[in-house]
């Protein structure tokens, strides 16, 4: 399907419900594309079932900073991010990745004001095209943003990594009670195999430590038991929390190639994922069961590892 058209539609609507997004994906997808999904992807939410395309596109749109889903003000919907140049800069260069909303008028303005800049458009699967604008310094990008009506975020990846709390921060987990009843399908995360293993609900309630998944229907819920207390956590935060407790290091960095890799099932939390993705502007490559983020600087990699307590 043409995710560029989907992003144009999302931008034209501004915000909406999850059902409208999903229906639009259904409408825009071509029938022959239904079987071309990437099966090698994190199956946390569907546990072995194929990952639907609307979920893949949703994750990609979130990672690339185009659209936010399921946030506090719209827990069952989405909202498009204002157009923003996510910049990264070096000594003699500055590069901006166009994030957020897009419209034909906006793209026309960018093209008209970028006569002295280089624009590169890269096509990628299940994602909008990457629009990368290269300049000699960030000042040129800020000037472009001012003219075209685009927000500019300097050192976007580093700023994101510096703004978010580490995985063991209390803001990322909420004290709660485990679900009541025996009709839940309960599983426990194994830090050794990175798999979910079936467990008894009573065992989860009496356990003092562990990451548990309670599933009833199609939407799972994740709970961390720490010192006997139950906390509701995002699944990726919970995984890294218990990987740290088990002193397992799953992230590796190759400074020569500027690559950060990790197991697919240990995909980082959304904002860390977004920061690492915006280093290059392309979604991470999945190869051999591992996620690979490209063009990640050493400082960014170390910051991400520090946030994930790796």
């Amino acid at each position, binding site marked *: 399907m043409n995710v560029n058209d989907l992003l144009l*539609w999302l931008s034209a609507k*501004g915000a909406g419900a999850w059902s*409208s997004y999903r229906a639009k994906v259904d409408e825009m997808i071509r*029938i022959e594309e239904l079987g071309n999904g990437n099966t090698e992807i994190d199956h946390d939410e569907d546990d072995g079932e194929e990952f639907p395309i609307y979920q893949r596109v949703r994750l990609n749109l979130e990672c690339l900073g185009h659209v936010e889903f399921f*946030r506090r003000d719209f827990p069952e919907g989405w*909202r*498009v991010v204002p157009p923003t140049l996510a910049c990264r800069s070096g000594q003699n260069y500055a590069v901006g990745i166009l994030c*957020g909303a897009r*419209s034909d008028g906006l793209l026309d303005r960018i093209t008209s004001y970028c006569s002295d800049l280089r624009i590169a458009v890269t096509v990628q699967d299940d994602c909008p095209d990457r629009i990368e604008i290269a300049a000699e310094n960030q000042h040129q990008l800020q000037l472009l943003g001012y003219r075209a009506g685009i927000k500019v975020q300097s050192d976007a990846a580093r*700023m994101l990594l510096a703004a978010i709390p580490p995985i063991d921060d209390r803001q990322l987990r909420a004290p709660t009670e485990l679900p009541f009843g025996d009709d839940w399908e309960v599983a426990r995360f194994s830090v050794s195999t990175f798999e979910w293993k079936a467990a008894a609900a009573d065992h989860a309630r009496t356990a003092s430590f562990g990451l548990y998944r309670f599933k009833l229907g199609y939407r799972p819920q994740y709970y961390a038991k720490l010192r006997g207390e139950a906390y509701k956590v995002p699944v990726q935060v919970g995984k890294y929390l218990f990987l740290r407790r088990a002193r397992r290091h799953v992230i590796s960095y190759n400074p020569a190639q500027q690559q950060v890799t990790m197991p697919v099932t240990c995909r980082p939390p959304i904002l860390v994922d977004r920061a690492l993705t915006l280093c290059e502007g392309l979604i991470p490559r999945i190869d051999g069961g591992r996620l690979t983020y490209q063009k990640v600087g050493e400082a960014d990699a170390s910051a991400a590892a520090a946030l994930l307590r790796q």
Partner: protein
Amino acid sequence: MALNSGVKLFVLIGAAFAAVTAFWRAIHKNKRETGGGNPLGNPESPSKAPKSRLVEATSEATVIGGTSPPVAVSEPTFLVTKGEAGQNEVTCNDSVPLGVSGEIGGLADIVSPAAGGEHIHEVPVDQTSEATVVAEPELAEAVCGEHPPDQLTDTLLKDPDAQSLSVVPVEAAEKLASLQDATAERDTTPQPLQLTITSARQFSTVLENAVEKVSKGSHGETEEKGAARQNATTLPEEIPQPVQLTDVCDGQVLNGIDGTTEVEGARSGSCSEKPALRPVTEPLGSEAPTTPSTTPQAENGVVQADHEGDNLSAGASARSEESTTPERSAPESTEVGPIAARPSSEVTPIHKPGRPPKYKPSIRVSEATTPTLRNQTASETDGERTRSLGVLVHVAFDRRNRCRISLLPARNEDLDEVVRVNGQNGVESWNASQDEWFGDIVPANLGLLLEQGSIWQSIKYPELRWVLSGREIYVLAQNSTISAFVSTSRLSLQWDHLVLVNKRLERPAREALEDAGCSNLLAIDGEGGVPPGWVLFRNVRPTVAVLHDSGAGILNVLRPVHDIEIALRGGIRLGHANWLHRHPPQIRVNGATEPVEVLIDGRRAMDDGNGNHEVTGWDQPGKHIVFCCGVTQSYSLVGGIEDWEAFEAFTYQPGRRERGPSLAICGPLVASHNPAETVILSPSGNTCLLGSVPGQIVASPPRYEVSSREFLAIADFPVVWVLPAAPLQCDRSVAKIRLVNPHSPCSAPRSLTKAAHNVSLLWCYAILESSYKRLDIEPGTVEANALWQQYKSEAHRLKERLR
């Protein structure tokens, strides 16, 4: 002689009449003995009943000549009691033993052959209206004192046919009496009266009385009364007869067009000011009597029905509008207000959905010019203000080529996001999937529903329902509003389809598809996800038009005809017929086997070679209309949102041991809640932030306990420099002076408050101590060093001045 002959003739006539009367009496007695009994179940003799007054309505004939043989006739005994509600209850007990009557003494007994040799006392009988009741005159007077002459002389009270009354239960007799009362008082109290008819006999009695009242208007004309009774009693008693709603208005009862009874004058509105009778009917043989008090009253001329839909009461004006057919007495026939007018908090009973309709394909033959039954039904539905939405069949394939068949209820944008419906499988909740559709539903008995159809009725709005018309063949095609295939009316030439066929028609369907040029058919049965008893054909792409045949029935849907359809595909559709400007739909004409003229906004469109039609201005903003061969389709091109605002998708506070403002993240944007605050990246050691104005200095520690090279620093002024917190104690090889935003230093004001004086001194000391430590400046450009020298000079001057 003549006189003697006349006397003999008269005696003969009298004897004949007595014989007939005895014959009738014997028959009646025989019936009573063989199981008739007293249907009221009152074993006591009427004379023993408390507070009852026995009226022996025996008549005494005027004896002409005095020589006629006396004939004793025991007339039926009517028991008039006071009911609980104060109305008169009339019962009949004709089991008075013969010879009890006081008028029998002294009269000769005769033997009637018809009565089986039973002796019947002869009494004189007067058939005239002037006849007076001579037996028990005091009781008769009492009765006459309570009842107006019209009532006492009314048909029921004078009716000697006891059987016609004896089978009427007490409640029915009460209503009959009420009918008489109402009929007698209708000129003074124009109140609607309800009447419940529980049997055909009761109906015949009511009808008889009403006709009698209408036709005569006076009492005592027994010949017409007898004729009317005879007509009325021709209804069989045991065979259930469809009793129609009967309207009695102004005493005139007429038969309706379709055999039903309707009121003359009611349709013309003449009875709007008259008291109206509206008997409520039940099917014959129904054991449950209808209680008038439970019948809803008509208000404002609108018919209201109870939850069972059996009882109806109507105002006069309502009757003039509604039909009297039995179907119209069903709940669907009640007149209801529009959906928007119904309060949402109203508790609406769950209505049982009706029988699902059978699909009737549109057969396009030349002689098919008359409107179909479906159209007639539609107009009737309009009159009932019932809204029907469709339920389509949705077929999608997964990557393993296993199909998933579901039902797709249609939706309007004015419907709720979640609706509760009552269908064949009970109450269900449907969630909206998009503007046009609710989410897919996969009932367990899908195969049965596909064949027989189904109706889902909204619980909140009973007049709203979803209909799946049952059929043996479903044709599915791609739809512009949803992916995969959804059911459509028939095959279209040169388009990909799926055909879902009941296995009974698999062979003729395959032959029909092959006739339509579908060569590479692929049949999928139950193992591929198709419901049992059905088979799904893939690769259905008809290429040959086939004429319709009236005798082919449902198979005509597999016969593609030259059918013009304007298809708007592609583009970016924002909703319904609105497309995003610069992303218009492709305009194609389907079904045309030869070139046809396509007009867009009244101008002839050209084919671009791919089947898409375009004309100058077709892609400009605004509404456009496409016309081709009598078919019109419109679309609009509109602009989308262009002003997007940032919002707080994520909000984080500083760490537990730190203080500071919270930060918001939106996409790649990181900002503080306060727009005046500056958020910068600072090296982990440089926690002192300086502005261009003396006194603009703040210490911003790291927000979280993370060992990183940089941290997020926040200041409420434009930051120019970030310095180590303690320059004199820092490692000179590591710590640096970092330029954030080049800006020349500003001079301090002449007069300073004490607080401003202190922070200005701090500003000066931070610069001078960093300079004293000879920390490197980053970036190490000439401009940065020159700017630092300016700040250093300003700090010197200000420090000397503030001392």
